[in-house]
């Protein structure tokens, strides 16, 4: 029976929640990483290394790594810096292991990579020359909690091809390992004036269907969207959802038309509407949506879920995992029909990822 490891990044360190293939009984280990604020925790399925993107208020940004499922950890920030004196690296916001390397997204916006298992890092690109590049690192144009390069999506087959998200500016794709970039935001909606229609979109979470690598989905500040041509064009699929705002999103691992989001109120509240927690699912690529709330709190539940706060495993009947910004973890082992709370009092959760081992 496989071992299921849920990697939870929080405001106070990384936690590992473990279960077997039944995904019913869970144990919690942690906090790890000296309780540094953690933005994203991932596991390289090839090498087995766990990486945790972190930024201490005092000691700066770095990436922790563990080769033994959390028994021991090492921190490295070697190479995680900008030579350009105008750019200051305040945090590592996201990670994407693939093809024997790990990509890391940072604030100020840049992509770094490690090819030695996280011991050292090198700058791959700051997207020089791209539209918006002159503005997006201007502190006057950054909201509180700015993440910079907030999302990374590696292509499963082509190591030179990946997508990145610059917070507040949108998606850029490279097909040559980060040498050149193309904005991929056509069809997206922005509820504010745009100087350049190619950029200025607030993409919160970008995912790819494992069943069809041309099928992308995203949760945006302004709606939920689908692409059938690997991001070259987008169509909005918000209709049927209770709000057009949210952060977290996952694609079904086996069904290209399956996709999950967690709609939130979009003003300052940014919690699930009406104090009633729910995950929403489409099984027809966004034509229709189902509210999934059995087992989730339905009264006075002021729950928020951040952009990396939902994960799905790839078992035959996939398990879903949701971590809230108030420290609860919920799971479903029947594709969202029923939910169980498996941790209640963790620090505020920024990321949830899952590994199936064995």
């Amino acid at each position, binding site marked *: 029976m496989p071992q299921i490891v849920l990697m939870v990044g929080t405001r106070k360190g990384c936690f590992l929640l473990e279960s077997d293939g039944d995904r019913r009984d869970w144990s919690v280990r942690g906090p790890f990483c000296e309780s540094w604020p953690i933005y994203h925790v991932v596991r390289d399925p090839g090498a087995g290394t766990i990486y945790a993107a972190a930024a201490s*208020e005092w000691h700066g940004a770095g990436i922790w790594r563990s080769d033994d499922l959390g028994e021991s950890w090492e*921190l490295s920030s070697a190479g995680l810096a900008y030579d350009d004196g105008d750019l200051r690296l305040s945090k590592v916001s996201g990670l994407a292991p693939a093809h024997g390397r790990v990509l890391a997204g940072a604030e100020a916006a840049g992509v770094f990579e490690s090819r030695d298992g996280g011991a050292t890092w090198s700058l791959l690109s700051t997207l020089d020359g791209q539209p918006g590049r002159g503005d997006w690192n201007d502190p006057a144009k950054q909201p509180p909690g700015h993440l910079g390069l907030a999302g990374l999506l590696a292509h499963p087959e082509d190591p030179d091809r990946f997508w990145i998200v610059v917070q507040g500016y949108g998606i850029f794709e490279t097909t040559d390992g980060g040498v050149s970039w193309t904005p991929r935001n056509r069809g997206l909606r922005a509820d504010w004036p745009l100087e350049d229609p190619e950029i200025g979109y607030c993409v919160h979470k970008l995912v790819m269907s494992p069943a069809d690598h041309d099928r992308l989905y995203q949760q945006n500040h302004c709606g939920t969207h689908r692409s059938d041509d690997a991001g070259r064009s987008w169509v909005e699929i918000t209709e049927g959802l209770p709000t057009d705002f949210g952060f977290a999103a996952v694609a079904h691992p086996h069904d290209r038309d399956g996709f999950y989001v967690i709609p939130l109120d979009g003003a300052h509240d940014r919690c699930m509407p009406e104090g009633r927690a729910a995950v929403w699912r489409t099984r027809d690529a966004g034509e229709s949506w189902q509210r999934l709330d059995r087992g989730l709190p339905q009264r006075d539940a002021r729950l928020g879920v951040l952009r990396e706060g939902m994960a799905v495993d790839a078992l035959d009947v996939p398990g879903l995992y949701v971590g809230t910004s108030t420290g609860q973890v919920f799971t479903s082992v029947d594709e969202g029909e029923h939910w169980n709370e498996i941790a209640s009092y963790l620090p505020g959760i920024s990321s949830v990822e899952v590994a199936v081992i064995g």
Partner: protein
Amino acid sequence: MADVHLPVTLPPLFAGLPRRLELDAASVAEAIERLDERWPGLRDRLCEPGPVLRPHINVYVDRERAALETPLDASSRVDVVAAISGG
């Protein structure tokens, strides 16, 4: 030898690093360099590229606010303080 006191947040990151130690250094920068030689990576936890001290790392020499270039002598007391913040 300067008498160097380090914040509680630092020793967990470097095996064998004590809270207090004596160093032979002519400036704060040199003291941090000596620490980095023995515990590689320590400089990055205290300094940003420039180099300058990180925004919430404060250094005092003989109870006076100091910078990297502040000189040390054999009787200096150096306090490296992680600013009180957060929650």
